């Protein structure tokens, strides 16, 4: 059942939920292939059958356009389920491991087992996908799950609570709704793994809580994702892809949206003009009225973004857009040029529809700009030049890198999705999700035959020689050692 008693879900309730779920896990039910498949099929069914309600909740929470919601939330969730269902048998199989002379004769394998009871703390900007995608991974790996959806997307949060209760096994998968108090109560429990998506600030709090219990964590955080644009690229395509990654992604409220653009001084105006053109094609000449833009999620975030725009030295840098409507929580797609580095806009993750363009004399200076900030979740580069691509890929540290496009790498299940440094730790998607929620247990099978007495006391110089040969000398060395000689 969904724990809907806001404000009364305290540490005691959290502890009793934990006890219940631990007993559930200990029955061993969630380990079976059949159970996992049944849950995954139920989630696929949920997303399919209740699509309309989901789209409605997403619209209520974020004014998310239907197409965007379909592509970025529903399809991605379905694809994740489908992939897990298709591959689960293979993922669950133990992996054979080679053994060496040192342990001859023996055989070895690595067995994936569930951690146990895991906590998933999701976020508000893709409230369906970022709740169900990790849940799918946790279930595929055979865990018992508690999902804590974000209270900042309340319609989706309560819909998830309701639908999961209807569709999946409640003795093993639960939703706890609420805000800080409920999350804190949950964080005091001893989880076997915690998966957190959200801000860097709260990521620290989650990891500190996990440290008390020695709970491993995956933190999917954010950062300022740069998009570097080399002059002489296909301007229209580059502009469109940047716009798609920025404003068609929850109106810039996405951890992997390009946060800022870097290009050369000479090229900046061309890029701005191209973007202005494409923005009009995408959102019409009055974007405040466009149905294809999500709104700002709530008045807190609106105020945060407005503060960025209102800061001295910022508003004068607006070259496009800048309109806002507090009542409707709308801010128009806004481009700014060369905002000073000390401003909030350039220092903190924007997470909104403001796109500063930072110009440099030579493109290679963009590397220093990026490196002066903390490692981002994603870094983008638009270029045709091989040497620039190579230098970027090799020298820019980010969670992931995408050349000549934005955001799409998120959709590929064969690429691990996760951050580095301040943008997070651990990764998921596809098999990486299964692995993220599995303990990989090493298993060694030894035979009673072939015992190397050199290992055991009483110790003698001959044993030393033999050991050296056994561990390092290979067959030849062993023969020599047995013959009483050392190999030098």
């Amino acid at each position, binding site marked *: 059942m969904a724990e809907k008693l806001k404000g009364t879900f305290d540490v005691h309730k959290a502890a009793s939920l934990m006890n219940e779920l631990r007993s559930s896990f200990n029955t061993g039910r969630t380990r079976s292939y059949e159970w996992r498949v049944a849950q995954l099929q139920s989630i696929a069914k949920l997303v399919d059958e209740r699509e309309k309600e989901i789209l409605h909740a997403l619209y209520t929470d974020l004014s998310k356009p*239907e197409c965007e919601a379909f592509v970025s939330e529903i399809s991605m969730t379905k694809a994740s389920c489908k992939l897990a269902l298709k591959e689960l048998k293979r993922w669950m199989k133990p992996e054979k491991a080679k053994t060496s002379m040192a342990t001859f004769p023996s055989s070895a394998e690595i067995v994936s087992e569930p951690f146990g009871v895991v906590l998933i703390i999701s976020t508000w900007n893709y409230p369906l996908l970022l709740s169900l995608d990790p849940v799918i991974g946790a279930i595929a790996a055979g865990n018992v799950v508690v999902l804590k959806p974000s209270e900042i997307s309340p319609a989706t949060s309560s819909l998830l609570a309701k639908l999961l209760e209807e569709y999946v096994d409640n003795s093993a998968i639960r939703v706890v709704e609420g805000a800080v108090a409920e999350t804190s109560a949950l964080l005091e429990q001893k989880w076997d793994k915690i998966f957190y998506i959200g801000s860097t600030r709260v990521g620290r709090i989650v990891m500190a809580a996990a440290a008390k219990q020695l709970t491993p964590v995956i933190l999917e955080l954010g950062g300022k994702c740069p998009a570097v644009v080399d002059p002489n690229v296909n301007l229209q395509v580059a502009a469109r892809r940047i716009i798609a990654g920025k404003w068609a992604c929850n109106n810039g409220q996405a951890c992997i949206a390009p946060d800022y653009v870097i290009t050369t001084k000479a090229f900046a105006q061309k890029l701005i003009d191209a973007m202005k053109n494409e923005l009009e094609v995408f959102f019409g000449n009055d974007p405040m009225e466009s149905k294809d833009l999500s709104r700002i999620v709530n008045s807190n975030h609106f105020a945060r973004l407005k503060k960025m725009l209102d800061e001295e030295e910022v508003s004068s840098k607006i070259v496009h857009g800048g309109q806002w409507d507090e009542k409707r929580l709308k801010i128009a797609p806004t481009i700014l040029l060369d905002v000073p580095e000390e401003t909030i806009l350039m220092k903190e993750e924007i997470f909104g529809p403001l796109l500063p363009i930072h110009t440099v004399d030579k493109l290679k200076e963009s590397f220093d700009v990026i490196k002066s900030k903390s490692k981002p979740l994603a870094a983008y580069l638009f270029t045709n030049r091989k040497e620039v691509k190579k230098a970027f890929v090799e020298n820019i540290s980010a969670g992931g890198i995408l050349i000549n496009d934005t955001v799409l790498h998120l959709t590929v299940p064969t*690429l*691990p999705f996760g951050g580095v440094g301040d943008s997070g730790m651990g990764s998921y998607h596809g098999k990486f999700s299964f692995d993220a929620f599995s303990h990989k247990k090493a298993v060694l099978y030894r035979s009673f035959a072939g015992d190397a007495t050199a290992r*055991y*006391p009483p110790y003698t110089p001959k044993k*030393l020689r033999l050991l050296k040969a056994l561990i390092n000398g290979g067959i030849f060395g062993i023969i020599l050692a047995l013959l009483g000689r050392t190999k030098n």
Partner: protein
Amino acid sequence: MEVKMELHKTLEELRRNFKSGTTRNASWRKAQLSALLHLLRHCEEKIFAALNEDLGKDPVESYRDEIGVVEKSTKHSLSHIDQWMAPKKCRLPLVMFPTTGEVLPEPLGLVLVFSCWNFPISLALDPLVGAISAGNAVVIKPSELAPACATLLANLIPVYLDGSFIKVIVGGADVSATLLQHKWDKIFFTGSPRVGRIVMSAAAKHLTPVTLELGGKCPAIMDSLSSPSDLRVAVKRVVGGKWGPCSGQACLGIDYMLVEGKFASTLIELLKKEIVKCFGNDTRDLKNMSRIVNKHHFRRLSNLLEDPSVFSSIVHGGSLNEEKMLIEPTILLDPPLDAEIMTEEIFGPLLPIITLNDIQETIEFINSRPKPLAIYAFTKDDNFKRRILSETSSGSVTFNDVMIQFVCDQLPFGGVGESGFGRYHGSYSFDTFSHEKGVMHRRFIFEVESRYPPWNNLKLRFLRMAYNFDYLGLLLYILGLKG
């Protein structure tokens, strides 16, 4: 204060040096690994001496558990590093053609390795091998409880390895605390759960990923073995695995044994014989045994035996030689389960044997306790093996031997639950000190209009087909045959 400033300057310098990019080159990494091999070979006698001074280890034990382990890891890394460093190509769905994807490992940056006192050389240098292979700059903080080894490492590493990127910082808890205040790109810790919590809490402030190699009570299940030769080998392995490595002061060593009641006395007799064979029967002059590391641990261990109900369960050994810091290999039969010897990790040469009516009960026994670093089971019963694997959880499971999984480069070595998280050895060492960066290359051709707003039903239909990998539908759509 001065020490703190010095430390701060050192770390700043290391970070600056890392940014120069030198450590990213395969040639630098290989040169360091080769230099480490030279260090181990040239300084073998010095290392034997330091290990003997700190822990009374015999050269065979020192080679088996410390030098040999690191030599093997280093050689393994040298022969595989090119393969590990290479980007791994990823398959992408056809609908994304002509996009390509790959995973490129990159160093995390500046990493901190805390080693432990019981295997002060291998637990410092084995992680170092991984950190270097992955291209990082490294600080090793050896345990102050093995001071001769700490000093030796501090003296030798600068001579053989590149001091601009690899440093040893010695000192006590205050130095560790100062180190933990800094921002690291990774912390690798081997030690106790109590200190593990402190390390992870400090790491949380900087969002530093950690690997914690902790301990626990590793059980050894002894099923009845019908073949006498198998039983002999099993007993040898138990004795060798319990008291051989550092007198039982090993996170991976056997903490306690589980056996069927009717078998206990036979087992105890065999163990006694083997103990005498390995360590002699002169309790004032035990051979081939390491010392207890210091007075604090000596007292801790002797306190475990003080409880009268524990003391009365001793069936072999029990004598303490505080002058030589040696405790006789001690076997206890069914001490009370709520005594400290059965609730805390022993980390010493005391072996409780717990009897059960049926060997299958061992599973429940183990499951009612925190997850250990390893479970050992001596059995030929395949069903029982399967049950152990699927119904218990531990860092690793080894059948019919003890501790040897440590030398298997292809097996990940690490804990779960209270015994830690993260893993290393072989390619897992490389991975643990790397960030696996996903890289996707797109082209400018093949623009897909349906990706972009303004949205309409046509575009929605296209996207539905694309996401369902309905290639036929997409083809028809593109050809204008399907609207």
